[in-house]
């Protein structure tokens, strides 16, 4: 069992975990992010919603530097990420810093991305041993605990190709949480799953949220976003179009485009 995260400070806002300021990202002439500001506080569960192509994945991937923003400022776990100019964009100035921050920011991908040449248990043990440099024996116990946490303890010796999508995604979540990350990023974690497998993954994410973990979730699961998030951020064409509590946004009438977006989704399924 993971220990519950320390609760937010009783007075004042919880400390900021990730702060993005005026983040932009361009691919050639295509402006994907046009100045996104977002501050995620400890314990927040933020769902990032938006139409396809609005820049959700790009934004999330900027937060752990899988994409390097074209301009803007990024502060992760209190450290300002160091960039240096390159052409008319930026590049990472200090890879050591980025690797250190990444090891404290867990990421779960749309298509799981488990290492296909390693078993379930090896997938989960890989980073604690080879990134954190920890002892194999103590890591093994924690990896098994993480797998138990997502209900995958009985598949420790399987290879990813032998598992269903939902099982793979739960292992991917175990791989992320075994690092004891301060924040978890999810990029459409259920979009690649058959409908009947979505529930088992959402259940695990629901439990993580209930533990008080800080999570940023890109998703098209409206009901989940509404029920689990503490805040909804609605992206449109690379900008934050609207944000607020799920209650405020889903009540309707706060933002016309958000209402359209939601009704469009509800109609679809």
């Amino acid at each position: 069992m993971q220990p519950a995260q320390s609760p937010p400070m009783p007075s004042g806002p919880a400390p900021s975990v990730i702060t993005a300021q005026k983040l932009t990202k361009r691919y050639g002439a295509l402006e994907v992010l046009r100045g996104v500001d977002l501050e995620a506080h400890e314990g927040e569960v933020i769902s990032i919603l938006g139409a396809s192509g609005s820049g959700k994945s790009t934004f999330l991937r900027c937060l752990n530097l899988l994409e390097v923003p074209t301009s803007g400022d990024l502060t992760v776990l209190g450290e300002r990420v160091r960039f240096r100019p390159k052409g008319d964009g930026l590049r990472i100035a200090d890879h050591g810093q980025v690797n250190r921050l990444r090891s404290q920011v867990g990421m779960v991908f749309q298509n799981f991305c488990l290492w296909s040449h390693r078993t379930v248990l090896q997938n989960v043990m890989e980073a604690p041993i080879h990134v954190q440099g920890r002892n194999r024996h103590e890591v093994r116990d924690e990896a098994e605990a993480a797998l138990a946490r997502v209900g995958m303890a009985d598949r420790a010796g399987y290879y990813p190709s032998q598992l269903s999508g939902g099982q793979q995604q739960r292992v991917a979540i175990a791989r992320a949480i075994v690092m004891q990350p301060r924040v978890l990023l999810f990029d459409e974690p259920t979009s690649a799953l058959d409908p009947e497998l979505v529930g088992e993954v959402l259940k695990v994410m629901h439990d993580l949220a209930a533990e008080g973990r800080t999570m940023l979730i890109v998703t098209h699961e409206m009901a989940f976003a509404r029920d689990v998030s503490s805040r909804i951020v609605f992206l449109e064409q690379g900008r934050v179009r609207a944000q607020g509590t799920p209650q405020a946004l889903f009540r309707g009438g706060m933002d016309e485009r958000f209402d359209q977006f939601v009704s469009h989704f509800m109609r679809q399924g």
Partner: protein
Amino acid sequence: MKASSLALVGFGVDGWGRLLLMAAGLTLAAALCSFAIGAMLGTAGAVLKLSSVATLRWIGTFYTTVFRGIPEILVVYLFYFGGSLALTHLMHLAGFPGFFSLPSFVIGVLAIGLVSGAYQTETYRSAYLRLERGQVEAGLACGMGRVVLLWRIIAPQTLRFALPALGNIWQSVLKETALLSIIGLVELLRQSTIAAGATRQPLLFYGTAACVYLVMGQVTGIGIRSVERHLSRYRGR
């Protein structure tokens, strides 16, 4: 005096068995060294060809084009005579008169290694290109540095994709060591020629050599395929 065929290829007093066996060992050693040199050059070549720097890509392409385009026997000759010429020249400069040549084993292994490296370059390059982006991103996302990423994720996955083609390259390297007979290395083919000449039994000795090549190829082939099976035990996606 006409000894029986079996005695001639056997290990008795007038048998050539021991010499043939040693020559086969030399063939195997030359093939192993050539392949290993080829693996290093192939890795370097693939890195060059995959580079984002145009000049480096050009160097890589030049290497693979040249060494896949020239007959191998010519590469061996060029290395042998070129190498000796250069060494003799150097020795003269240092004040040692006379003719010097490099050991034919070294020359031959370098030449065949270079050619095999050109083929291995293509193998590693295309294997790397088959690597899924997500496998690398998952490593980056949990904070892996370049070295860990390379050794723990990229190398094993690339090797798995490369192995079938590497098996073929190994087989041809094993056979191509026969070229070293022309620069005086007494490997399996050369030893068989010597024995054939001395006993006037060419068919017997060349036939024996052919069998030994086949056996060496098959046995190592079985080994490679079992590694292949081991590495792809998780295949399915």
